[in-house]
């Protein structure tokens, strides 16, 4: 077996040094009647060539995003990742190292995390950020728990424009921890008035920017009302590229900003691994979940970095920890940081502009179609279209023509039949004029005129 360095000779020598007759002696604590001799239902070892053949055959059954006109978003976005990013994250020293608990031999990871935290703070317009969460959705649930700790209240209000999966994750976590959630009904028309639901028990209001349906709202007014009642405003950003074009959540008065960072540096990966961004105000830093890296000096007075504020974490506080999170998204943060370093302010703003321009171009062409309405008056790179027929059927028909048209809202909200004609359409820098033309032509064919 190519991954195992020991030879039979080695094994024999080692057993005699240990002073046992055979390997079974080392497993004697396992109840004998339950020990397995072999597992007949699984195949034996295979060559690299054979494994590659097997897995490639599975991969080839799937339609890759870059191989077709592609307009799917709803919380994960197809962007171009420079080759440099993947090269750096595959360096052994980043790929095969552990969490940087031994700071003296992990300065590479730690400095990159410090850069990541700074970039996330700048993007979100906040004062501090942690070294990442699993993803945006778990970050959202953690933000709500944090708001409960800060305000010592127990009720969260969730916008109807919040990604349904984020809502469900937050709801599940809150149900189990015995916290109250008021989740507004889905709000594709952007008419909700969340301030009406705030009461003395409200610890936080959670909104999304741009929201699930694509709307971009100014939350400054809401922030004032939330703060007046002693609660916190949590702003969720699932398309982080948007922050290159619009005002930051920090500028609108957010207290916690949670983001999905997949768009920068990370592949679609069928949903994971992704990278959760988490930023807040300096005054709440000791209530913030997740690992953080901080600056300090070594015994010669030279600058260095360490994981810090670790008393908040589970390995010390155990049942009093701020969250049970242990692993973060290390390598995905690195990909994020490398990509954002390559882009810089110039590249990042331009990327955002190209995304917005492509989406506007597409929207203008869709608006020309009969019996079709765009619900989102302002948007970044994704908008909601009301079709005259079920969106899921249109998506399936177009998929047969090798066009991935978008996400039918009903896939995430099957309980609301009034949403079944709604289609979320995203367009990034990856889309060409040709892609749009193919899409529009196909839509004309399938929609009743």
């Amino acid at each position, binding site marked *: 077996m190519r*991954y*195992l360095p020991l030879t039979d000779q080695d094994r024999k020598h*080692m057993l005699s*040094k240990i002073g046992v007759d055979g390997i079974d002696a080392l*497993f*004697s604590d*396992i*109840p004998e009647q339950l020990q397995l001799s072999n597992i007949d*239902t*699984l195949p034996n*070892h*295979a060559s690299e060539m054979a*494994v590659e053949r097997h*897995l490639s055959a599975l*991969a080839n059954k*799937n339609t890759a995003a*870059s191989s077709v006109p592609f307009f*799917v978003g709803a919380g*994960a976005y197809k962007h171009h990742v420079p080759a440099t990013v993947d090269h*750096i994250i595959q360096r052994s*020293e980043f790929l095969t190292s552990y969490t940087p608990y031994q700071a*003296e031999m992990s300065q590479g*990871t730690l400095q*990159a995390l410090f850069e990541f935290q*700074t970039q996330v703070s*700048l993007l979100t317009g906040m004062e501090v*950020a942690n070294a990442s969460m699993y993803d945006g959705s778990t970050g959202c649930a953690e933000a709500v728990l944090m708001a409960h700790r800060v305000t010592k209240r127990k009720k969260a209000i969730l916008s109807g424009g919040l990604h349904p999966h984020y809502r469900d994750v937050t709801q599940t976590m809150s149900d*189990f*921890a015995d916290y109250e959630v008021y989740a507004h009904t889905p709000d594709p028309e952007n008419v909700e008035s969340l301030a009406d639901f705030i009461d003395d028990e409200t610890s936080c209001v959670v909104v999304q920017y741009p929201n699930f349906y694509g709307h971009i709202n*100014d939350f400054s007014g809401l922030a004032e009302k939330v703060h007046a009642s002693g609660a916190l405003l949590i702003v969720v950003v699932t398309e982080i590229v948007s*922050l290159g074009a*619009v*005002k930051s959540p920090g500028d609108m008065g957010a207290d916690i900003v949670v983001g999905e960072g997949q768009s920068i540096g990370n592949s679609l*990966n*069928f949903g*994971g691994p992704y990278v959760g961004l988490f930023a807040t105000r300096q005054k709440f*830093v000791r209530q913030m979940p997740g690992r953080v890296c901080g600056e*300090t000096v*070594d*015994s010669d007075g030279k600058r260095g970095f360490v994981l810090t504020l670790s008393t908040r974490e589970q390995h010390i506080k155990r049942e*009093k920890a701020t*969250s*049970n999170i*242990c*692993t973060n998204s*290390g*390598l995905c943060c690195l990909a994020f940081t490398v990509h*954002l*370093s390559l882009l*810089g*302010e110039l*590249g990042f703003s331009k990327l955002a*502009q*190209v995304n917005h*321009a492509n989406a506007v*171009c597409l929207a203008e062409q869709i608006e020309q179609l009969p019996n079709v309405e765009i619900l989102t008056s302002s948007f970044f790179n994704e908008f909601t279209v009301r079709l005259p027929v079920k969106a899921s059927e249109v998506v399936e028909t177009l*998929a047969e023509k090798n066009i*991935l048209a978008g996400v039918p809202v009903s*896939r*995430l909200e099957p309980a609301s039949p009034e949403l079944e004609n709604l289609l979320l359409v995203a367009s990034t820098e990856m889309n060409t004029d040709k892609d749009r033309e193919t899409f529009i032509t196909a839509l004309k064919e399938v929609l009743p005129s």
Partner: protein
Amino acid sequence: MSAQHSQGTRPTKLETKFLGETASIKTTFTGNKALNIEEPLLFEVGSYDKSGVDLPEPENVRSRLGGLERKTPIGLPGLSEPETMRHYVRLSQKNYAIDLGTYPLGSCTMKHNPRLNEKMARLPGFADIHPLQPISSVPGAIELMDYLSYWLLELTGAYGVALSPRAGAHGELCGMMAIKAAHTHAKNTHKTTILVPDSAHGTNPATAALLGYKVKAVPAREDGTVSVEAIQELATDEVAGLMLTNPNTCGLFERDIIKIADAIHNVGGYFYCDGANFNAIVGKVRPIDLGVDAMHINLHKTFSTPHGGGGPGSGPVVFSEALAPFAPLPFLIRDMDGLSLRETCGENTSEQHPFGRLAAFHGQMGMFVRALSYMLSHGADGLKQASEDAVLNANYIRAGLRDVMSQPYGDQNCMHEVLFDQCFLKDTDVSTLDFAKAMIDEGYHPMTMYFPLVVPGAMLIEPTESESLSSLDMFIATLRDLVQSAHNGEIERFKQAPELTPVKRLDETKAARSPVLRWQDGS
């Protein structure tokens, strides 16, 4: 003041009496030491008018940003491509890695990460597919998830699996939520307590507490295993479940595990097993056969997906027949129409009671591909051999060090990791931390220290199956030399260590007292 929630007796203060006595090392104009090159922060080398990415010019369109256009700069520095490459390659060289040398962190399973896994995960048919594109356009992805599930079920003897948890602690949360959901479903409102051994990993009590359970600690026996009698005594009607790591955090297999499981089942509780140490027993015994009801599997430990400097992980949870119906969304179902993915609660059948959703989308697909690539490579025979080699390597280290280092529970066979304590350093003025830091200068990553908390000055060594005999011999010889040194009073070898790293011992107190968590202009 309450008892400390602590990381043990680990010293954190720099001992000033030993500072400033460093041996004279040649200084250079640049501060570089030959191949070891200093690198400032991105914010000190980047510039606001530079980019390493060429993008097309945006089309000239009427903006639809609703008047919320960004008016102020963000402050993100940029670098050209060659500068980016240098910046991060230089940083990478300040890291230790499995690919550089022995990484014996106990309970972390730092095994070789095959590059075939990386290649497979990057196939466009896996890396470049969207979680919400029509399922009809990704049948290969669904098949892969199903095949991975099949391997996990066969290796554990389980009835169901939840693939979506994003890491071990998240899997633990998933397993415990399923237990709580099962009790709620059966209207067992009186079940309010979870038993957790005091040697457990810190995530265990943290998870139980998050779900509103009272945590009751179970003491260890003199030999380091959990006492059946203690469990039987504590297993009252209020007990909802037990969280146990097996093999345990002392590197021992809980030999009374069946009686322990029975005791919990007898009071209507469920048995959660922390699967962090599964690497010792893959292919040797199936956890569900031992009475386990739920167990998370760290794909990034046992099944070789890379640790990546702290993640991403993946923590699927396997379930017994009793708990399988409570697995969260999404899950795979096979019926007359073939294989499909259930993503919403809408269509519940009477058999399934999903407790909710743990994360957006369907789980860590990138990690599923890597883990399956590893499993297929090893096969059933190779996985069993890997477990045996992991256990053999740990015992070989034990045999090589048992006469000079002390074991808290006596010299007994261990599983895939061997536990020492600080007794052998008595009267040397060298602490476990000092000992570990001296290993760094010798080119080794230290073992896990001060864990489990119940063992003073614990040193937990897990070599994994990836170490060769010559590498183990060198490791043993190095540790023996360090022990000798400590007894000879060569204190400076320890107190000043590490001296040969890019930075020396860091001031953790300063970092925690006034946290600086980001770069700031002028700082």
